[in-house]
């Protein structure tokens, strides 16, 4: 596969690893957060941690939209799915997220709710066209990469004059999450969490461009390197961060230059701005209420807003008291630090969201890393 295989080459990986080891200053530690869940997955899947020197440590950030979706919103979706004749469409990642009382969309499906996994938002529109007598709700989640496809679906539904299609919108914004982490007490208070730099998300950045990160680099004096999705990209980005930190720079650099520009995909951005607007505040699982961090559907498209069409109450479901997802999402604790990890909470029976998504820090560690601890 072109543009994929070359970016996974083992020999080049060794070369970059040698560079990192050579250039990392043995007198200091480097704490780098990879924000994006896809990067977490790549780091685990390719065993990148094995190739880094001991003083370069990766912290897993909250860039996993499944992980940060509050259980209450999943509960809302389950209740919608249980309405008679309603078809709930969602991405595969959502099916096993635990809501309240051990329920999930998959379990609701097993009990008779019509829950259908789709690969694309367009598939949900198609289902609505094919089932004009039934209400079809698309459970939309995701960061800025996945939001434009939802916008396209809403506009498509409008063009088709569909009366039975609506979207339950849970789209969230990357820069807000990064700001929230950087402003958290653990970072501000010295000694609790050292965070030296960020690996910026790959595909979010193809949409929003590299410009939005300039604020963080400037304001918080932390370097950001936007990295592509493949393991070599991640390693090169780590090298670039090490170099910035050695040289005392705090800039935004773009390793994923083959797909990311400073402005990003303006067409997609305009489409999103046409259909969505900012919510004043939104609850993130593990991070609490974060201002201006999420989107809702604008008034002129309210005909397609599930929160207007249906009564969707605000449900607050507290996480299990022993669940450390919140701290893990903020990078303050590691999966191994959670009492439930690997015992009560496993990929088969996830208690918290970090275990459900295959790139949540806990799932990634369980699947790929736990043998290192045991060995």
């Amino acid at each position, binding site marked *: *596969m072109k543009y994929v295989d070359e970016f996974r080459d083992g020999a080049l990986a060794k070369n970059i690893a040698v560079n990192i080891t050579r250039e990392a200053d043995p007198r200091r530690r480097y704490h780098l957060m990879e924000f994006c869940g896809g990067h977490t997955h790549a780091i685990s899947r390719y065993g990148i941690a094995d190739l880094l020197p001991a003083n370069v440590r990766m912290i897993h950030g909250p860039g996993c939209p499944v992980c940060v979706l509050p259980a209450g919103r999943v509960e809302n979706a389950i209740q919608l799915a249980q309405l008679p004749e309603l078809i709930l469409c969602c991405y595969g990642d959502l099916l096993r997220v635990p809501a309240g009382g051990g329920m999930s969309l998959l379990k609701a499906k097993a009990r008779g709710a019509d829950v259908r996994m789709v690969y694309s938002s367009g598939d949900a529109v198609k289902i609505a066209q094919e089932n004009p007598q039934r209400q079809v709700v698309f459970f939309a989640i*995701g960061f800025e990469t996945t939001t434009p496809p939802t916008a396209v679906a809403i506009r498509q539904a409008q063009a088709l004059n569909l009366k039975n299609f609506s979207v339950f919108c849970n789209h969230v914004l990357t820069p807000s999450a990064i700001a929230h982490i950087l402003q958290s007490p653990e970072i501000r208070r010295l000694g609790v969490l050292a965070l030296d730099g960020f690996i910026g*998300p790959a595909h979010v950045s193809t949409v929003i461009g590299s410009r939005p990160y300039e604020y963080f680099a400037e304001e918080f004096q932390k370097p950001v390197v936007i990295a592509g999705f493949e393991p070599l990209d991640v390693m090169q980005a780590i090298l670039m961060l090490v170099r910035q930190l050695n040289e005392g720079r705090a800039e935004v650099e773009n390793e994923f230059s083959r797909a990311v520009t400073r402005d990003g*995909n303006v067409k997609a951005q305009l489409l999103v701005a046409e259909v969505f607007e900012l919510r004043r505040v939104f609850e993130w699982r593990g991070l609490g209420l974060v201002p201006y961090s999420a989107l809702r559907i604008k008034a002129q498209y309210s005909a397609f807003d599930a929160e207007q069409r249906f009564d969707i109450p605000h449900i607050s479901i507290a996480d299990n008291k022993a669940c450390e997802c919140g701290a893990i999402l903020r990078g303050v604790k590691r999966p191994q630090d959670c009492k439930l990890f690997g015992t009560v909470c496993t990929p088969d029976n996830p208690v918290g969201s970090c275990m459900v998504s295959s790139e949540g820090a806990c799932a990634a560690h369980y699947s790929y890393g736990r043998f290192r601890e045991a060995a």
Partner: protein
Amino acid sequence: MCLAIPACVEELIAGDSAIVNLGGVRKEISLALVEDVAVGDYVIVHVGFALQKLDPEEAAQTLALFAEIGGAAQE
């Protein structure tokens, strides 16, 4: 986040869509989010949509960077 992969545009079809090819697997995707896509271009595909065109020159430059010999060890 965001599982997305680079795929080659094989055919443009009506309704702002295209058939892309990744390693021999063909899929129909939407071009609603991009512009000026031609057959032979590579695009990043996410949940059935092309998000961005891939720049082959930048790709080559990035690969070259991977192969560079790094700087001297810190003193």
